């Protein structure tokens, strides 16, 4: 198991190199006058040229990439064109906020969705099943930025229960977390339900019942662990879309996270900053997927034996 984890962590290196190449390449395709964006419309042409020279933007792409990779090899994510600060510092000063949002969003989604999914599956075709499935479908179908706006109108403007933006205190967390978590929640609920429905039709569940296991334990002791396998996959995948969704949610709620920083950096063509964000997001996503795979091993012995 340890070997497996170490192997997977080592596998991160080619992923980081690949991702950095991919993004660097895409960003270099993009036309954009970085210096002008930083200096504003009123800066004279001499200042623009001086800044381009200082940032090394006049060099060919491959040289810039080489320089970037040299830095990366030493663990240096480079310096933001726009702020002149280290990208690592920039991203890390915002990362806790994004992580906070993602963590609570995921927790909100998981804590609600799994019980709802189980109840829906065990009472298939009941009222509670129909209601939760309609909500789950709506949750999947609703664009989260739209939901965010509607929540602001309802809970911030009319009811005045929660602030419309910012990140101070738990109250500011409520609406963004709901906005971010709803899509995930809907997806996980649906997966839990269908996975549970499939599992409770399995022969081993009948075996368990024939052994005299009561219906509660049939669900929680025998079915749940098996049903969780696809659910865990979905949670891992949802985490990726959660990071993507965080960009929009952060925009709607003026949340000071990496997503907002990333969008602004993309717009300003601040390549090192974009790369830094994407690399850190990717590492984060990969580590979450690794955790998912480790979790698999704990849930499913068939998978665990493959890791050895």
């Amino acid at each position, binding site marked *: 198991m340890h070997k497996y984890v170490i192997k997977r962590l080592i596998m991160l290196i080619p992923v980081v190199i690949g991702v950095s190449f991919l993004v660097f390449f895409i960003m270099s395709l993009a036309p954009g006058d970085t210096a002008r964006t930083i200096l504003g419309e009123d800066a004279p042409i001499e200042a623009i040229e001086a800044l381009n020279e200082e940032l090394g933007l006049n060099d060919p792409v491959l040289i810039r990439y080489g320089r970037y990779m040299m830095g990366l090899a030493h663990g240096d994510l480079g310096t933001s064109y726009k702020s002149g600060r280290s990208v690592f510092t*920039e991203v890390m000063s915002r990362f806790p906020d994004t992580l906070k949002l993602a963590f609570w969003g995921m927790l909100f989604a998981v804590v609600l969705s799994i019980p709802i999914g189980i109840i829906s599956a065990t009472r298939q075709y009941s009222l509670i099943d129909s209601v939760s499935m309609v909500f789950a479908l709506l949750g999947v179908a609703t664009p989260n930025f739209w939901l965010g706006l509607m929540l602001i109108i309802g809970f911030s*403007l009319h009811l005045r229960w929660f602030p*419309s933006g910012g990140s101070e205190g738990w109250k500011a967390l409520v609406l963004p977390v709901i906005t971010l978590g709803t899509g995930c929640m809907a997806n996980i609920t649906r997966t839990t339900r269908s996975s549970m429905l499939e599992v409770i039709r399995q022969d081993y569940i009948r075996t368990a019942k024939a052994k005299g296991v009561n219906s509660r334990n049939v669900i929680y002791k025998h079915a749940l662990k098996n049903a969780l396998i696809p659910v865990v996959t979905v949670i891992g995948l949802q985490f990726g879309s959660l990071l993507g969704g965080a960009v929009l949610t952060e925009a709607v709620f003026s949340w*000071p996270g990496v997503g907002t920083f990333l969008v602004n950096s993309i717009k300003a063509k601040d390549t090192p900053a974009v790369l830094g964000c994407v690399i850190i997001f990717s590492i984060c996503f990969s580590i979450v997927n690794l955790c998912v795979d480790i979790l698999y091993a704990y849930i499913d012995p068939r998978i665990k034996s493959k890791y050895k």
Partner: protein
Amino acid sequence: MKKALCTILAGAMAVSLLAGCGGGGADSGKGEGGAAGGSQVINIGINTDVSSLDPHNHNDTASAYATRHIYSNLVRLTDNNEFVGDLAEKWEFVDDVTVEFTLKEGVKFHDGSTLTAEDVKYSLESQKESPKVGHLVSMVDSVEVKDDTHFVIHMNTPSNALISSLNHSGCAIFSKAHVEKLLAEGKKIEDEPMGTGPYKFENWTPGASFTLVKNPDYFDSQRMAQNDKLVFKVISEDSARTIALENGELDLLIDVPFTDAGKIRDNDKLALDEYVSTHVDYFTVNETKPPFDNVKVRQALSHAINKEDVVIAAINGEGKAFDNYIGEAAIGYYDVVTKYDYDVEKAKALLEEAGYGDGFTFNCYVSNAKRANSATVIQANLAELGITMNIEQMEASTFYEKTGNSEHDSCIAGWVANAEPDNTYRPLFTSGNAGAGGNRSFYMNPEVDKLVDDAAVNSDKAAVQKDYETVLKTLSEDAVWVPLFAQTGLIARNADLQGVNPSPIQMHDFYSVHY
């Protein structure tokens, strides 16, 4: 005795607030605002974050909100568009290229040290090395220190822009000792910003907010802060910003969304301050590309666009249709331009004359939603003349690059004039700045170049005015732009808040704001 007690109380409040470290930011000073001695925290809503707290490392409005309050400049601009001394007591032009300055006595930095001419020399000379604001002092050749309060600026060329530039936030004055200490420790200026301004830096949470606290030892008692703390909150989503103001999370809102202006006016608890800004949005064609090299076509476009509709669609009516090339409130504005009224028939006739009666197709680059809205109206207007305009919206960085490379047929851009007219006329209309320099019309007229050059150095104010008037007349006759609108400056606030003093060039000071 009573006064002393008040001071002690205020001090105690400040300490407790510092200890609380912004915990209760939301419940601002509003409630206890009226009570004497109560701590006043003013929450200000802005739409973009600070990019840097080092005045030499930024050139944007949001960052200037922070640095202009922490640092002071040698000169400042009054409400009447006059330059007066800030740190400088006075100055005198010895000749075209030599200016003698006298500093105010006993100005203290936030760390208690006293400002000297050496600090000024250090600040201006290190500024020249900055790629971001070095250009502002490109005319400065050297700074010669006479004694602690006297120094001379030697210029390498005559320039009318020196004094106005010194008012720019990039020309802030640092403490030499402090900066050298920071650099020696391997830190950066922005790690511990410290100047002589009315506020001290407290903290900055990137992307979220930055906080300034009152400097009780500020040198200019007339401009002493009337509140205790300024908290700038970054809320990028328009509607959320307004809601934050309505909910009392903000006391003051600088970047008021145009679509919400009416709602703020109608709200008894809020007030909307309108001011004439120097912000102008314009539509321009690329004159290197036919048919736009034909002045008749440009004039036809000027007649074809319904600016009133543009004003409604782009800025929700919060401004007025405009015909000039520089904002009304700006230094360098003269009402001398040829006006083109909205007249579709005349436009048709001009197009016929030019030989384009059947219309043509071209692209229009825009870099944000507001300008895309303007473009959408123009698109519909031009469709009536059989002209097809394809709008391409892109990010600002892409816009700058593509228009700089002359890839556009036309574009919509905007301009906020600052205190120095040369900073408007030169980049926008001279041949040397065609393309990336700012002249996205690619308008190249040696006459105009000559006039702008003369206005920059001529010490005769009447001659400068005549130069600029001629430039404006020429531009409008050539129909270089279709100026679209001048947008009204808007600041929204809690109705009880007083002392808001907007600046036409958006360099607002907040020291006077209080309940």
